[in-house]
């Protein structure tokens, strides 16, 4: 490929790349803020006493295996725990000298994002954000790539590593089946302190802010999850900064899918448009090359012909000249020979017969 054509292609590629994300964003111009009337929960860390009744209820309603240590063993709170494929929710304990007994607790489970990263990362659509607010998983679709586990900003989906044949991704379901029956999520129902405020997301959010406002100094003035990662169905209010109860304060308010939508939205454009664009460029380039080649060939042919013709003409000329010369020469020679012959004959005749004989012969 020529340098010129290469630069042309690079330029075209650059243009294509810069156009693609803009086009993708323009395509996604609706701002989704969650399903209307979806459910939400606000976990009030000032109310939680760390009794683990929610964990027990979760295990019961989800038919999860019984853990080694019973739920009334509160010594497990000493360690910072995570959820796993057999535990959808855990209570963690954090130091807070101002709290009763110096402890504040945080209940950790899937936050059920308004725009879930797990769902956006899943290329087989195994995750669904349901209109009731829950984010559920369909094992029959899952291919086990575990992109969801990487994508989740809260590190929620977990994998059944001990299942050899068909390991599933597991996480809290917001008790989606129970919600459909009009029941409360298991943990919410079990909590003796009503530390989880359940209701329509908008409603519980309003109540959470009311709690914060009517108790100045009791809470950090922020509802964690109201805007984090574009908003979550499960939210937290806390007496101490959220980082001190194990929450990531640096997640930002952009929903995870928005972070990748540009790049992913560019894929169809790249896949669909680029071949056409590049093919076209290639076509134009080859066409031009062909035209040039053709022109050149024609020019060469014309020149060749001209030269040929010139050469031919010259040749003809020369030939004519040569012919003429040869004719002339021949004529001269003939004349000469004839002259000589005539002379000789004349001489002979003169010498042999007489001048009449010679005249007679010449008259023949």
């Amino acid at each position, binding site marked *: 490929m020529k340098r010129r054509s290469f630069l042309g292609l690079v330029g075209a590629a650059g243009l294509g790349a810069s156009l693609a994300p803009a086009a993708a964003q323009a395509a996604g111009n609706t701002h989704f803020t969650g399903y209307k009337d979806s459910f939400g929960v606000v976990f009030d860390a000032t109310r939680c*006493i760390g009794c683990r009744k929610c964990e027990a209820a979760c295990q019961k309603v989800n038919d999860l295996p019984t853990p080694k240590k019973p739920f*009334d063993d509160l010594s497990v709170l000493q360690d910072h725990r995570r959820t796993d494929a057999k535990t959808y929710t855990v209570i963690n304990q954090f130091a807070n000298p101002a709290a*009763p*007994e110096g402890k504040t607790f945080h209940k950790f489970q899937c936050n059920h994002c308004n725009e879930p990263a797990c769902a956006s990362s899943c290329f087989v659509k195994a995750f669904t954000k349901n209109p009731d607010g829950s984010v559920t998983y369909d094992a029959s679709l899952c291919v086990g790539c575990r992109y969801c586990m990487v994508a989740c900003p809260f590190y929620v989906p977990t994998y059944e590593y001990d299942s050899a044949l068909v390991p599933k991704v597991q996480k809290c379901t917001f008790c989606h089946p129970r919600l459909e029956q009009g029941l409360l999520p298991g943990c919410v129902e079990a909590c003796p*302190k009503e530390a989880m405020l359940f209701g329509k997301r908008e409603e519980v959010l309003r109540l959470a802010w*009311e709690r914060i406002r009517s108790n100045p100094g*009791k809470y950090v003035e922020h509802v964690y999850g109201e805007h984090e990662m574009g908003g979550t169905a499960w939210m937290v209010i806390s007496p101490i900064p959220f980082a001190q109860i194990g929450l990531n304060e640096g997640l930002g308010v952009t929903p995870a899918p928005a972070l990748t939508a540009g790049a992913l939205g560019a894929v169809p454009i790249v896949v669909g448009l680029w071949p056409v664009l590049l093919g076209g460029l290639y076509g134009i380039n080859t066409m031009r090359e062909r035209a040039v080649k053709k022109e050149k060939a024609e020019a060469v042919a014309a020149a060749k012909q001209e030269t040929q013709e010139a050469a031919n003409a010259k040749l003809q000329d020369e030939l004519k000249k040569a012919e003429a010369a040869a004719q002339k020469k021949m004529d001269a020679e003939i004349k000469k020979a004839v002259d000589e012959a005539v002379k000789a004959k004349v001489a002979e005749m003169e010498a042999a017969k007489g001048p009449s004989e010679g005249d007679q012969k010449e008259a023949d």
Partner: protein
Amino acid sequence: MTQRKRAARWVGIPCAILFLTVPFISATASTPGPVGTTEPKVDAIVIDAAAVFGTLEQPGVVFYHEKHTTALEKMAKDCTSCHMEVEGKLSFKFARTADPKSKTAMAEMYHTSCVACHEKVVRSYPKVPQAAECKRCHVGPAVEGATVTPKPSLDLNLHGRHVVAEAKRLQVKEEESCKACHHTYDEAQKKLVYAKGEEGNCVYCHKQEPMTQAGRTVPTTRAASHESCVNCHLSTRKVQPESGPVLCGGCHTAEAQAGWKKTPETPRLLRGQADAILLVAGTPAANGTVDVNWASAGPGPVAFDHKAHEGFVGNCVTCHHPTKTGGSLAACGAACHTTTGSADGNFITTAQAAHQLGVTTSCVGCHTTQANARKECAGCHAPMKQTVLSQNSCVQCHEAGFPTSGTQTLSKAEREATAAKILAAKDRNPKTVPLENVPEKLTLNYMNEEGDEWQAAEFPHRKIYLKLVEEAAKSPMANRFHGDALTMCSGCHHNAKPSLNPPKCASCHSKPFQERTANQPGLKGAFHNQCIGCHQEMQVNPKATDCQGCHKPKNS
């Protein structure tokens, strides 16, 4: 040729990556871990005196005062090794009485004096930092030190002990011993003089930062207190074994302060104040007379028991607080917190000064803080913490039965007499509900659902009531302000008019998370939050997670 080029590339790229990452790897590896936090030492003084002249090249020096006094004592040396003595008083600046005029001179002064001594003692203390070991001393103020130490406060009891001691030292009558410490600045004589009847708290003049007043600098609280207290303690020490503390730890630790002697009786500190005074909105005069226009005097005057408050508060300065540039023992409304506010009072009116929540300088603010401070009271008061004053609260302090129109001039004596009369008539006894109206036990029998793990709790209603009454009876404030007997009921039986037949909990609290009653917890949540909340605040057993402390398991 190409082969060699390719080989060079394969070697070159990893080398380049390695080259670029190594500085980062080594940087992370060499980053020092968190400096081991040492116990905060009260005697740690950060020396950065030269900082007043501009930025310092080195962080401040952390100087451990007690370490040095101990070492000097062993060498049979005293304070004068470091502090200069002028007219029998030590200057608590290091090795000087006045500050050098430049940064270099200040640094030079410290370096010369410190290093000279350190060089001398290096034989007995081989570890002492020497010249050129900059970083052994210049560690910066990051080291926990003097800033966190509790500041000593001279309460009325300690003040009383000083009155006695000073009278003995100066060999004067007790009421004349004030002059030992209290002083004002006389402009004419250009010196500190004692002015009888003008004694106030040190912090009225000696502020956190040096204050310029009439062209001279008033020393900070810190400078003034060290110079006066420590010097006096030192000189007393020379004539008698018993004297006040002279080292940092003697005043600046909570343990030391707790160990200070106390006289069984706290003498009153008389500065012309009344035992009781009628606080009434009006135009005050200097002699204590108030011109009252009853039509605009608000919700009635308050009979204020000044004498009782002296005992409760233990000092003058909590209520008669210092301001940015001054402070006085005058009545709140006299000059600063006037009925309409004034610049001197930061435009805080008399009413705001009395009612503001969240501060300890206002009546209501302090009373609320006191009620929340005791864990015995916190069961009822902690949930009320942030509530605004109700309309019923006014009558707790504001007296009825005064004129509502017309004007009157009340002299100080009249105000005192009226207040004394009102206060004498107050019932200060704990008020209780007849026990037959207090059910002995309640079984909270709402738990009959199938899945319930526990049996209903038996609630020792009367026992709890009696305990609360017993604790409240210990507080004079509670006895005075709890109003009627039903007040003790409304801690739990909240949001309903106090009565002997309060509504059942279940009449408001039923199924949780209902849209129309979203603000009301469900019955389970209400019980647990109320009981556990109170137990946590009052720090009583059963603990929050001790289910069996209240419930029996169902299968037993």
